[in-house]
């Protein structure tokens, strides 16, 4: 039991170090919201590079579309200004609409691609649009499983 406990501790410790990977913002195009497409080494064995890059590039496209300064944003801005921005109390802005699309896309990606590989992609809006994080879900199950196992051994169930 002491050996198993020690091994479990080690396993949990090494698993916990790899719990989350953070993809930082790419500021090369000024302050628009864009994430780095560089493939992190920690995900090397977990997911194919092409899938990861496609996810991040699609996210970048969505954000680029949301922040585009063009005809629609002028129209929205002028209309809102003319109504002293009171219209924003009842209307959803274009950015908010695209954010909803993004969270649906992330959910879809998680279900189709990342959950089967034991990863969980978090929506950047939850981190202040600073990072896209990949969480190791197997670590969660492992922690829970090993905790229960230890409790069983302690109480001799």
């Amino acid at each position: 039991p002491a050996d198993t406990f020690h091994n479990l501790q080690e396993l949990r410790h090494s698993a916990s170090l790899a719990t989350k990977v953070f993809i930082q913002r790419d500021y090369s195009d000024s302050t628009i919201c864009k994430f780095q497409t560089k493939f992190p080494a920690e995900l090397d064995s977990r997911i194919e590079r092409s899938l990861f890059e496609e996810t991040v590039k699609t996210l970048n496209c969505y954000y680029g579309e949301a922040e585009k300064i063009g005809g629609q944003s002028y129209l929205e801005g002028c209309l809102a200004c003319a109504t002293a921005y009171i219209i924003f109390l009842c209307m959803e802005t274009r950015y908010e609409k695209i954010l909803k699309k993004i969270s649906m896309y992330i959910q879809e990606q998680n279900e189709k691609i990342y959950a089967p590989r034991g990863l969980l992609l978090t929506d950047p809006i939850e981190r202040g649009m600073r990072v896209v994080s990949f969480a190791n879900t197997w670590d969660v199950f492992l922690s829970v499983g090993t905790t229960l196992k230890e409790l069983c051994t302690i109480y001799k169930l």
Partner: protein
Amino acid sequence: MSAVMITRKVTRKWEKLPGKNTFCCDGRVMMGRQKGVFYLTLFLIVGTCSLFFAFECPYLAVHLSPAIPVFAVLLFVFVMAMLLRTSFSDPGVLPRALPEEANFIEMEIEAANGNVMAGQRPPPRIKNVQINNQIVKLKYCYTCKIFRPPRASHCSICDNCVDRFDHHCPWVGNCVGKRNYRYFYLFTLSLSLLTIYIFAFNIVHVVLRSVDSGFVNTIKETPGTVLEVLVCFFTLWSVVGLTGFHTYLISLNQTTNEDIKGSWSGKNRVQNPYSHKSIIKNCCEVLCSPTYPSVLDRRGVMLEDLSSPTPSDASAASTHQSSNPVSQTTKSSAPLIPNEHTPDEAKPGIGSGTQKSTSSPKEEKPPSPTSPNAVAPAVIKESSH
């Protein structure tokens, strides 16, 4: 269990937000800490306009045109709307890093700095990024534990990092940042117009009335005029000046903070990488760009722990799932799992840690398919009660 849920008060995220902001209306309104000067601003605007509507407008509507008070009302409503929008909205506060993100950044910094000799000061935490072919330095914020994005700055009054930080304005009682800069600018612009308007029509009114009844009688009949002229006279210089200054900043796509620090001035310094080199493009970007949403989620419901789900669990589950499971397991099983957040423990393994992380998932793979299927459903079922 259901009886407990009914009596339990729902905790919203704004109640637990760090920083020195004041919140009202259950998180819908967000302001800075000191509100005294904001009340003064409100009092001055509402007071002066009330005097104008009471004393000048009846006379001017009859003798000149009813459009004059109508336009004054519209302008007043616009000014108030802009002021309240500036004061009550989130200026673009950047949320602080959660422990995992903070530790990830710490590990990155330590890996970049290498070993520091005992007694020596560690090098300043700065990241260099290239924006539009210029090198911009990103500073590390020790309070928020993040590298501040370009143009963000930490406001000491509100104790928050604010994106595209302009300045903290005591007159509106809030920081002016990315999200509310255009409202602030429109407020100063419309207030300038309102002040000029009231000032001008006060003069017109006094002149017209003096022609009929004489100057002294006019002042006796409408004593409010004197007060209004005084307030408008002093307000004019400051507000019009401020509007002019911000118009200049907008045309160059600069913030007050950058202007004060002299970030882009001087020959040896970097030129402003955010400017589009065209006044019209700069104005369009600052005033007509899409309105950014708040990343704070003030009214989101705080999920206390797995054993006591709130009614909004189902709807919030998709957004909170990611942050919940990992933090909850570490909280509930704290005595058993060694402290995984100490950088000292992680230090020797930074080189080996990345190796371990690549090897351990392979080790994990064989046991996990069997255990989570057995364990996870049991855990999830319990929490749904």
